[in-house]
């Protein structure tokens, strides 16, 4: 091969790089391992993680512990899905394209929207970009977001908005844990409103009222969520008047994996279809009139519109979207309803047990599978005591909301049994 090229050695392949730009010594990197050494090394590192059968975590807050049937990772691992690129050549990418089209369809059913994108990075970026396109479309300047949106999501929204010149204002939460919408009427130049439901405290918001109050201001309403499973049971955000729906789909068969990759879900009414960021798959006919699928409406995208694009997103999380589609196809209509119901009922069971045992539940609004619990004073050491026994009670909230001292966000999914919940109550408050 060197002869065909006309050089003598591999080092001669770089004549256009100036000599003073080349490095002379080898990079300082860890020594190369064999596959077997790597396995040992990784096993040791994995053992330093508090996961597995000996550990019980009641952490939710944007990352949820749900069962995933073996069939999903098995069929997802098909090389043809895993090792392909973005479907630029549709004739040899129909597998990915149909799978994404089906994902979009099922996502629309879950979110109650007319259209859904092929995916966004995660719930936080989906929400940030959803708010961004909404306020741009409104031609107004202010965006109001609820203080009960996940604190990390709010941070991401702030980061995305920082250089844009749009102004972000925060809506406080009420004593019952829901967003206080009364201030909306007084905000001038309001272009978009963002509310998450269930919100960060697990409380189910009145999305219908929020949509109405937003529309009264001729602004767009963006409904967010971090727990997609909730919409197996709850009224969909789209059916309650949301213009855009943006959230996290990790619960639909995607592993927790220390925070990512997850699945940003983003849906909208038909009216907003042409300003959505990211990929969309649509139906098409081939030369013989046969049905197929293509990436479509690319006139919105960066490679055509360059700096006028609705977003810069290119690679998204296609495989996670396919994973979620496989999960939704497996669980089905009746299954998702029952599973969501079970999550709610188990969380309610623990809520009752804890209150009976002396803990407080500061927010009275109905919740789905997580809720805030306040330990009685004098019981502050319980969190650490449980941690030493490999039980992670939940997320301490004081760091995010200084007013919520001794408060923890506790999540209960189908993976916890009644015995687990009884044991937790006993450990915590005995």
């Amino acid at each position, binding site marked *: 091969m060197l002869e065909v090229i006309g050089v003598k050695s591999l080092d001669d392949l770089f004549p256009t790089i100036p000599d003073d730009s080349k490095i002379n010594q080898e990079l300082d990197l860890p020594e190369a391992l064999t596959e077997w050494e790597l396995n040992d090394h990784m096993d040791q590192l994995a053992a330093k993680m508090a996961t597995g059968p000996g550990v019980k975590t009641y*952490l939710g807050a944007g990352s949820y512990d749900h069962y995933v049937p073996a069939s999903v990772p098995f069929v997802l691992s098909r090389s043809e899905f895993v090792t392909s690129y973005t*479907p630029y050549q549709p004739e040899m990418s129909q597998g990915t394209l149909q799978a994404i089209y089906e994902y979009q369809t099922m996502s629309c059913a879950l979110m109650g929207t007319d259209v859904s994108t092929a995916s966004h990075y995660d719930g936080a970026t989906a929400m940030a970009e959803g708010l961004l396109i909404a306020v741009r479309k409104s031609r107004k300047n202010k965006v109001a977001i609820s203080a009960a949106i996940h604190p990390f999501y709010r941070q991401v929204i702030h980061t995305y908005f920082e250089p844009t010149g749009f102004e972000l204002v925060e809506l406080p939460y009420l004593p019952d844990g829901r967003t206080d919408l009364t201030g909306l009427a007084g905000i001038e130049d309001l272009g978009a409103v963002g509310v998450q439901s269930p919100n960060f405290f697990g409380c189910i918001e009145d999305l219908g009222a929020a949509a109405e109050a937003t529309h009264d201001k001729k602004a767009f309403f963006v409904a967010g969520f971090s727990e997609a499973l909730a919409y197996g049971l709850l009224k969909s955000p789209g059916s309650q008047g949301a213009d855009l729906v943006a959230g996290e789909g990790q619960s639909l068969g995607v592993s927790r994996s220390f925070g990512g990759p997850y699945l940003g879900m983003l849906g909208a009414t038909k009216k907003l279809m042409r300003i959505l960021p990211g990929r969309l798959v649509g139906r098409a006919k081939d030369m013989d009139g046969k049905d197929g699928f293509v990436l479509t409406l690319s006139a919105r995208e960066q490679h055509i519109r360059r700096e006028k694009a609705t977003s810069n997103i290119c690679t998204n999380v296609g495989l996670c979207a396919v994973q979620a589609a496989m999960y939704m196809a497996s669980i089905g209509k009746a299954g998702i309803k029952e599973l969501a119901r079970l999550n709610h009922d188990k969380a309610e069971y623990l809520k009752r047990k804890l209150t009976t045992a002396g803990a407080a539940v500061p927010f009275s609004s109905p919740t789905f599978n997580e809720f805030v619990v306040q330990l009685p004073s004098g019981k502050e050491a319980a969190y650490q005591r449980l941690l030493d026994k490999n039980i992670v009670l939940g997320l301490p909230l004081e760091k995010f909301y200084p007013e919520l001292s001794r408060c923890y966000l506790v999540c209960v999914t189908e993976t916890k049994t009644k015995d687990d919940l009884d044991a937790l109550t006993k450990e915590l408050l005995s």
Partner: protein
Amino acid sequence: MTEKVGTTGLVLSEKLLWEKSRPGRCGMSIPKRDVEESPLDDSLTGEGPELPELSEIDVIRHYTRLSTWNYGVDTGTYPLGSCTMKYNPKTNERQAALPGFAGAHPLLPTEKAQGALEIMHTLEQAFAEITGLDAVTLQPAAGAHGEMTGMLVIHAYHKKQGRQRTKVLIPDTAHGTNPASVALCGYEPIPVVSDENGILSVESVAAVMDEDVAGIMVTNPNTLGLYEENLKQIAALIHAKGGLVYGDGANLNAVMGIVQMGKVGIDVMHLNLHKTFSTPHGGGGPGSGPVCVTRELEPYLPVPRVTKTGDLFDLDWNRPDSIGKLGAFYGHFGVMLRAYAYLRMMGAAGLKKTSQLAVLNANYVKEQLRDTLHLAYDRPCMHECIFSDKNQKPHHITTMDMAKRLIDHGYHPPTVYFPLVVEGAIMFEPTESESKDELDQYIAAFKAVAQEATENPDALHQAPKATVVRRLDETTAARKPCLAG
């Protein structure tokens, strides 16, 4: 000629999921109820989503059949220029699936997540070494997200200097996402034209550089597969006027262990773990786009930062100058794990050899096809080479026709119609993964297609024929969009 890879195998048809749905089926075991029902107000609950009802075997057959309509690196050569479709080692998948990692909640107290934090810390150090830069964030979720992160860092830097700037220089040979990333940060992209050799000249940059320019976004090697020979001088020029140099690392696969971009004037650079570091593309992600910066820019990186004190790893959230957060948690950890496995198996010598072989393969393809296709720039290339359809145009054959005919031969075509500076571009990036035998077969297939272009152009116009669907009408699809069933 060797035997053609593409043949007409048995192609199974498959309906849409909901066309297979039958009431009462469920493909998943629903956990037993061990607590009583608790009421929830009717005003809150809905009918539940209309998901299809399928048994487990229905689901498995559905997706297995769909997968056979796809083509991946594991199926065959996939020389998509600018995408680095290298082989994805299977041990990566083993490591990412370890229950200790796959089951880890991101908000575990850090003392309970030492394994993950150690991997992130080691990865950051390795990327700093590879790029010759000082500090790294792993948080960006993809290449374009890394670009945005880098531009936000540049934006925050200028703000801190007390005077925001308004423009960013973008060469015509830069990556396609660059102008949109710049616009997201409120800057106006200013195009810079490359010279007759396909690279940037110091003069063309000097002509547009002023003190309203926040910086330049350079892809090096650029999207013509050429090394930016004047980069050092250009960087000096930008720095002299207070600007910063952004390096798009999409093409890093050409220069690992050969050039450290931080040492030739780059201040901020993103990497694509799903390109250079062997993590699979998944038909459109998940990717990962770490951003590497100079010491001076470290304070602006997103929170949290991974820290190490003694043997203990922790997360530091207290960074007052930070641009904030770019994602819900710490980035695509599952992708980082795969890249980590790759790095640990390659070592320094392995990475350098990777780049040498990637450049070898691209130059080999260039030499073998130069009499068949028009070579856009007749210079030594890096990891990719760019042709055009100029030779075939007289026969009314376009790049697209040749690409579609290659599919019938059993291959994924190269990148087409990009970069925009070459009309009818055909952009090959074979990567280091392809052996000479594989390349020779691909080259032979391309030559056969070019031959056909002169003798039987209609075969190209009609291609592809061997796929589950033929050429699709994208215009009607966009005019009357149907995005859900």
